[in-house]
């Protein structure tokens, strides 16, 4: 168990990490047009300062011994009633630290890039406001010291994601995509909510320390339940099967958003959640297995979808799904995998951000066309983009010495450590990665130009290319740096635990096999899309391709199973409400009115009939008296 240190020194600024971008967001969103001019710069500035604070904290943290790297800051009591006591409290440990760095540093780069990318958008100020909001929420997510506060960040990033996906909401597709993302995420949120409730009912607390401290006392059934519910939450946020359908649509958002939120940071929150909850998954084997299964399924789904899409961003989105599948799978492996899940998360965050920004740069030069079939031969037109994109591609394919190689190889190794089948599957998925990334690079930068009329590809401005270059440098060296210099295993070990198992296959053999398969996939991609002519209109393709173009029928399934029945139910209830419940209400009013009309003729106006009813009344009275007496 780690020692929890009071947040002193630079760590007393923990709250500021969140408050800065939050304040930025507030100023940008509430100030109105007055801040149009300098607003975007303010947005960049807050995140930049955050990054500096984060680096400073990292340095300070490294100065402490491994056991003294958890810092906690309690602001005030947030929610309390009965035995519920939740504090507005932040905690920084090694795991959060790497996330904070990823978020702030990559965030800064993407903010800077956006200055160029969004320069012509009239709602630029709002865009940076949303981005700041996102950064604040994401930092809250990773800095919370309890699940409920994490939930706030969790939904906060969801909100930012919703806002940014539907940023160009004048496009109905964008608006619909945002809504879809939010609602599917809400399904995941149900999981998180319920997980928190089970925790509270079981442990009487939702704080990380309290929950993890008493897992040993809880039954495995309970822990499995919590684990599965957390998995549902993670699936929602990280676009894992079966809640994967939103991520592809989310590409409707501006490309920097796709880079920051839907590649580097937010979508990896699920991995964070699982890793953070390692104490639970370690004690719930079934839940961990489920995590692996979900990871594997998504890894393939994403890869297959990525291989079939012609839209460069959707293809990248498929790849993101697939890579997160790797991470989730690794996290499901337990102590052998947590560290590498995070490792891959970090490297992926950098290279995928680079790839997305690269894609954005390409689109920027191609009048925002995303169809790769209308690209081609762009390597000369946009040199920097080309170079950085290729570095990213090599990194994600896992070619040494690029950073992706180290992290992905670690996962494959860890997979073999726990289950050979999973290991084999990870290698196959790696081969598919080779194929679709090569396909993407080939269609975009190689082959013949298939540009639309009037398109004049050009390199993007410096404000965009410099972040690309920085990210490319990261994609190249980060793996080595983290593994050998940063010692990621030892760094995270106090939080996540770490163990290494011996496997039958020697290390070098595994790497060789993997590389051969990846290269084979890449070669196939090259032959298909660089050597041959790429048709402007996609050929029909085989059943798998067609299915993949339909996102493997994710939407269709959702529609048939959930959306349509909901609308039918809704329509039925509207009818039921009007005809039956309200019908009863109005009917009873009508009943008395009708009764009244029915009775009125008895008031006939004839004296004799009145007299008759009086006689009847007298008889009634006497009869009543007699009856009472008789009874």
């Amino acid at each position, binding site marked *: 168990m780690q020692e929890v240190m009071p947040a002193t020194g630079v760590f007393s600024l923990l709250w500021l990490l969140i408050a800065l971008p939050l304040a930025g967001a507030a100023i940008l969103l509430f100030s109105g047009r007055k801040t149009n001019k300098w607003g975007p710069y303010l947005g960049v500035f807050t995140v930049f300062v955050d990054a500096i604070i984060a680096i400073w904290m990292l340095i300070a943290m490294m100065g402490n011994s491994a056991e003294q790297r958890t810092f906690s800051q309690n602001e005030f009591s947030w929610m309390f009633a009965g035995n519920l006591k939740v504090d507005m409290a932040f905690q920084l440990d090694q795991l959060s630290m790497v996330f904070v760095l990823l978020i702030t540093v990559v965030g800064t780069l993407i903010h800077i890039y956006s200055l160029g990318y969004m320069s012509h958008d009239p709602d630029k100020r709002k865009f940076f406001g949303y981005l700041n909001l996102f950064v604040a929420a994401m930092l809250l997510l990773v800095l919370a010291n309890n699940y409920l506060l994490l939930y706030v960040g969790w939904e906060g990033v969801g909100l930012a994601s919703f806002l940014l996906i539907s940023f160009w909401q004048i496009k109905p597709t964008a608006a619909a995509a945002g809504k879809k993302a939010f609602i599917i995420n809400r399904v995941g949120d149900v999981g998180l909510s319920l997980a928190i409730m089970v925790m509270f009912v079981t442990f009487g607390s939702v704080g990380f320390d309290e929950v993890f401290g008493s897992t040993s006392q809880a039954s495995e059934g309970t822990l499995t339940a919590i684990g599965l519910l957390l998995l549902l939450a993670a699936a929602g946020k990280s676009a894992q099967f079966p809640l994967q359908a939103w991520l592809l649509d989310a590409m409707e958002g501006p490309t920097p958003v796709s880079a920051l939120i839907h590649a580097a940071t937010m979508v990896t929150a699920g991995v964070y959640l699982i890793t953070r909850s390692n104490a639970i998954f370690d004690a719930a084997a079934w839940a961990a297995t489920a995590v692996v299964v979900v990871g594997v399924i998504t890894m393939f789904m994403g890869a297959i979808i990525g291989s079939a899409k012609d839209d460069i961003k959707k293809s990248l989105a498929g790849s993101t799904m697939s890579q997160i599948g790797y991470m989730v799978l690794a996290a499901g492996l337990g102590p052998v995998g947590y560290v590498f899940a995070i490792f891959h998360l970090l490297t992926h965050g950098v290279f995928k951000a680079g790839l997305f920004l690269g894609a954005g740069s390409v689109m920027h030069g191609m009048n925002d066309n995303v169809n790769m079939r209308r690209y081609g031969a762009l390597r000369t037109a946009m040199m920097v983009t080309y170079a950085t994109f290729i570095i990213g591609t090599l990194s994600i394919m896992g070619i040494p010495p690029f950073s992706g190689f180290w992290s992905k190889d670690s996962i494959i190794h860890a997979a073999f450590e726990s289950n050979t089948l999973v290991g084999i599957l990870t290698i196959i998925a790696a081969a598919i990665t080779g194929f679709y990334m090569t396909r993407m690079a080939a269609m975009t930068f190689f082959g013949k130009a298939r540009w639309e009329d009037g398109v004049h590809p050009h390199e993007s401005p410096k404000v965009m290319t410099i972040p690309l270059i920085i990210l490319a440098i990261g994609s190249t060296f980060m793996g080595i740096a983290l593994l050998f210099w940063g010692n990621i295993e030892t760094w995270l070990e106090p939080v996540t635990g770490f163990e290494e198992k011996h496997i039958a296959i020697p290390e070098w053999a595994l790497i060789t096999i993997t590389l051969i398969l990846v290269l084979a996939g890449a070669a196939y991609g090259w032959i298909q899309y660089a050597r041959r002519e790429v048709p402007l209109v996609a050929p029909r393709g085989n059943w798998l391709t067609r299915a993949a173009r339909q996102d493997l029928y994710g939407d269709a399934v959702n529609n048939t199973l959930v959306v349509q029945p909901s609308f039918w139910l809704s329509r039925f209830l509207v009818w039921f409400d009007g005809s039956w419940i309200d019908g009863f209400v109005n009917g009873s*009013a009508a009943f*008395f*009115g009708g*009764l*009244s*009309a029915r*009775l*009125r003729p008895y*008031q006939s*106006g004839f*004296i004799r*009939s*009145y*007299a008759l*009813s*009086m006689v*009847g*009344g*007298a008889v*009634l*009275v*006497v009869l*009543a*008296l*007699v*009856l*009472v*007496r008789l009874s």
Partner: protein
Amino acid sequence: MNAVATVVHAVDVTPWEMPTLDYRLLAPVLIVLGAGVVSVLFEAFLPRGVRRPVQLTLVFVTLIAALVAVINLNGVRETAGQGALAIDGPGLILQGAVVVIAILGALLMAERGLDPNGDAFAARASSLPGSEDERQFTARGYFQTEIWAFFLFAVGGMMLFPIANDLLMMFVALEVMSLPLYLLAGMARRRRLLSQEAALKYFVLGAFASAFFLYGAALLYGFSGSISFGEIAASLGSKTGETALILIAIGLVVAGVLFKIGAAPFHQWVPDVYQGAPTPVTGFMAAAVKIAAFGALLRLLYVALGGMRWDWTPMLWVISILTMFVGAILALTQSDIKRMIAYSSIAQAGFILLGVVAVSAKGLEGAIFYLIAYAFTTIGVFAIISMVRDENGEATHLSKWAGLGRQSPVIATLFTIFMLALTGIPLTSGFIGKFAVFSAAYASGDKWLVIAAVVASLIAAFFYMRVVVLMFFTEPNEETAIVAIPSIFTTIALAAAATVTVLLGVVPQPLLDLIANAGVFIR
């Protein structure tokens, strides 16, 4: 001759004492009845021109004097007139209420500012409707001032009714109260055919009901050997046998009084008479007759028949429920406001019966409070009805009330207050009244009756609020009636009615105290 002789012989002549009359105890009634006689004399001997001011002075002085006399009797609790009259707390309160309501009623009847041709009464009731005579009389500005004599006699009868302590006095009071009202009902200035029809119906049915009452009284007398309530009660408690006779007797007597309060199924005269009678008379009648008749019913049931409560409470249950529902349901579809209020008064009678059924001090208090609250509200309602007019006189069709709130917000607001009171919304007298009788009934174990009353209140709320909807939620159109500006008479009556309606809702305690201190009926 022979028969009389035998009776005299049978009675066994005892030294005969001169009956004494305590005039102080009878003062209220005597003042009013005496004034009635004077009024007749005025009518006979005064020149036409001065009759009205003189009569009005007489009426108001009389009523105020009677009120003073009633107040003067505060705390008295004894019988008078050889036991024929019971001067006790409840009796005095009811008498006082009758007098106060009579003052308000007189104010309404004295109003001449609303109709361009004068007051609400026909210039000559004897003239044929629509005849040349009638036009002549109207043109000459004739007024009937006999109404004041009728009025005073009716008031006298009403004051006598709740303190009548034997069957004969009750019958006489009933008739003294009713006969002038039959006539007053037929004297409307406008829509005279309706008015005459109302008088005829009221008269025939009233006489019919009186006959029931009287025959029942005869049977009761036959059973108990006395017409005095106290002795009837005593013999009902001691004698056995002749069950059928006594039940029929009770049935007939009660039926006779139920007719006067307008309980179903003796209610059918109510809508017709209320609609046809001149509006001030309707208001007076609706308010005061109810007080008097309920007072009589309460005394009859509690004092004379109290020992048989287990026999008649279930019967009154049925009557009460029937009355509430018949009134409330039939009012739903009425299009004439007077007729609607008439049905409402039937429903209200059903609610008051809850207090009667309770057969407890609480029930008595509740019923009396309800009666007073209801009477004031009713006077106010009819005061406003008499003010809402079009070129043909009062605009009683509901459609003409549409948008009245826009045209005369004050009047419409007052009417709304009355409607809320009749609905039983808190902060009005009606709510306290409902509460009082409901809680009395509940405390006596009549839970289901309370539930029934609650349901009936709901139905009733619908038509009361319909008027509010019409007045306030509808735009005025060319059909909409106008509110005539009344003279000081109606204004005072209306103001008093509204004030009491609100006051009794907000600070009911003084009146409740008064009623509670009055205690129960003397036996």
